[in-house]
């Protein structure tokens, strides 16, 4: 990830100057702040009221809450029921998912926003699933990290729509990873632009690292397990059909990825891990994510 000083300068200028640059949606900040409190201090009605302020967010949350992907198998008709059935943590995950994904610009310049939703939501779910399998300490944090890892793509779509569209076309045409195409066309990747936004949003340092280093987890100064976990989950999603709507035409040896050795330092059971089974398990997510995103996106 080498960015020329001039390009970086341009990017920073555009990022600073653009008024419509994504900000965390107004309703989310107080909601997420509130849901950080210990469970015993949370109130169902207050949570419901906070979400209900944003009608579109409320409708999307309800759609999500009705998906087996979030572990619930009975139909819920109201936000209140959703809060009771899923619990505060799941609801926070859902609200955050809708909030972040709604940051995509209305016009993505020929790029299908549904594909970005699918990748980010899919990656979030895969991160949580993988985290649980390897007994990673904080599966909820893993979910959030998966959701936010490609924040830089949202930035690129807002700040450099034409240049980013060219990078995307190159990635699609050559079947190469998007960050490689961005590097060639823009001179930097969504990791770099994502870091700028993550810092501006004042995200915690571990999340900033996820956003900026998920393609190069070996460069994490802390050898962060979270960054490695997200990097591997992102790769698995891209290889199994949740890749922004195109196929990366290449062969990947998961066991030899740098992120695996980083993660193995923290999770010893990764040394004899059944990657094949994890891959097959994720296949069921792909269909569900596709179905869910299509229904949510229409609300």
């Amino acid at each position: 990830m080498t960015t020329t000083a001039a390009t970086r300068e341009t990017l920073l200028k555009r990022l600073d100057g653009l008024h419509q640059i994504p900000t965390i949606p107004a309703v989310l900040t107080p909601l997420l702040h509130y849901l950080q409190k210990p469970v015993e201090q949370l109130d169902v009605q207050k949570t419901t009221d906070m979400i209900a302020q944003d009608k579109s967010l409320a409708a999307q949350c309800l759609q999500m809450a009705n998906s087996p992907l979030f572990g619930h198998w009975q139909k819920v008709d109201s936000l209140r029921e959703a809060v009771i059935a899923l619990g505060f943590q799941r609801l926070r995950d859902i609200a955050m998912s809708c909030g972040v994904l709604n940051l995509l610009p209305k016009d993505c310049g020929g790029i299908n926003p549904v594909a970005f939703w699918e990748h980010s939501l899919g990656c979030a779910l895969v991160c949580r699933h993988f985290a649980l399998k390897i007994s990673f300490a904080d599966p909820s944090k893993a979910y959030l990290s998966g959701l936010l890892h490609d924040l830089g793509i949202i930035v690129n779509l807002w700040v450099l729509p034409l240049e980013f569209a060219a990078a995307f076309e190159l990635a699609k045409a050559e079947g190469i990873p998007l960050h490689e195409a961005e590097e060639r066309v823009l001179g930097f990747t969504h990791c770099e632009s994502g870091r700028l936004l993550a810092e501006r949003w004042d995200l915690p340092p571990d999340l900033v690292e996820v956003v900026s280093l998920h393609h190069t987890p070996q460069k994490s100064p802390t050898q962060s397990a979270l960054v490695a976990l997200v990097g591997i989950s992102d790769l698995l999603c891209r290889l199994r059909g949740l890749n922004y709507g195109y196929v990366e035409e290449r062969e990947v040896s998961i066991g030899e990825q740098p992120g695996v050795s980083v993660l193995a330092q923290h999770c010893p059971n990764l040394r004899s891990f059944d990657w094949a089974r994890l891959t097959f398990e994720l296949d069921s997510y792909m269909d569900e994510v596709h179905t869910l995103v299509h229904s949510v996106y229409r609300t």
Partner: protein
Amino acid sequence: MTSAAVQLAALAEGPPDPELLRIRDLIYQVAGIFHPDNKLRLLQDRCGRRMKERDVKTLREYLQCLTIQPSRQAELMALLNEITIGETSFFRNQPQLDALRQIVLPKMLEVKAKLPYRRFRVWSAGCSTGEEPYTLGMMLLEDANTRLKDWTTEILATDLNERSLAHAKTALYGSYSTRNLSAYYRQKYFSAVGEQLQVLPVARTSTSFNRLNLCDDARMTFMKGMDVIFCCNVLIYFDLASKRRVIQHFYNNLLPHGYLFLGHSESLYGVSDDFRLVHLPGTTAYVKAERTRGESRKV
């Protein structure tokens, strides 16, 4: 069905039965074939057929048939037969075929380009009634005038069952076997014979059929010089010791960096560490890894 309706249908099914999940794990442990959550209904149907046959009312009782009763081995075989029944068809696993054609083949031809013999050998081990080897033959023919120009391609197809082989040699197939066939391949490589379709001689010449028991150590030793081996839904019937022997033979029979393709959701976990799992778009394969001591291991 709309996506929302699909979601509701999934909800109506409710969470997976824990006994079914135990059966899934048992099958994966013993046979190496995994049913992801979105295929659990299929597994339940297959179990249902066996339960009807055995006059067993609940999955719990059926799990006991598979684990405790003296006939458990025979019942497991019967269930595996149900699971794989009707699996055989032309172009059964498209991502696997695409990966062979788009990624594996060009890579192998490049590695072998400097060798004196320009020969590409594929082995369909457990070819059943011949759909798989003929599919491979047609696919390779598509590249005959381009990247395979001046190359000899050979497809060795073997099976234990004489009747299957006799069927394969007639090259005549009904509508079930040809259900995944595109109009392009149907028109180019088949002729109509009554209500059936017959593979044209042009797509048959490179394929030879032979009877072979994969457990016959003496004969397995002679299957040398393979570039790619396809062995789909065959190893699932073998016990662990036999599986290990067959895989060892495959290892020795493959050329350096040769590929082994297994059935959809089939894994070598716990069977062999000699192969490296690789991810290709939408599919997985096993690559012959170099042994550090250099010599091939005796079976």
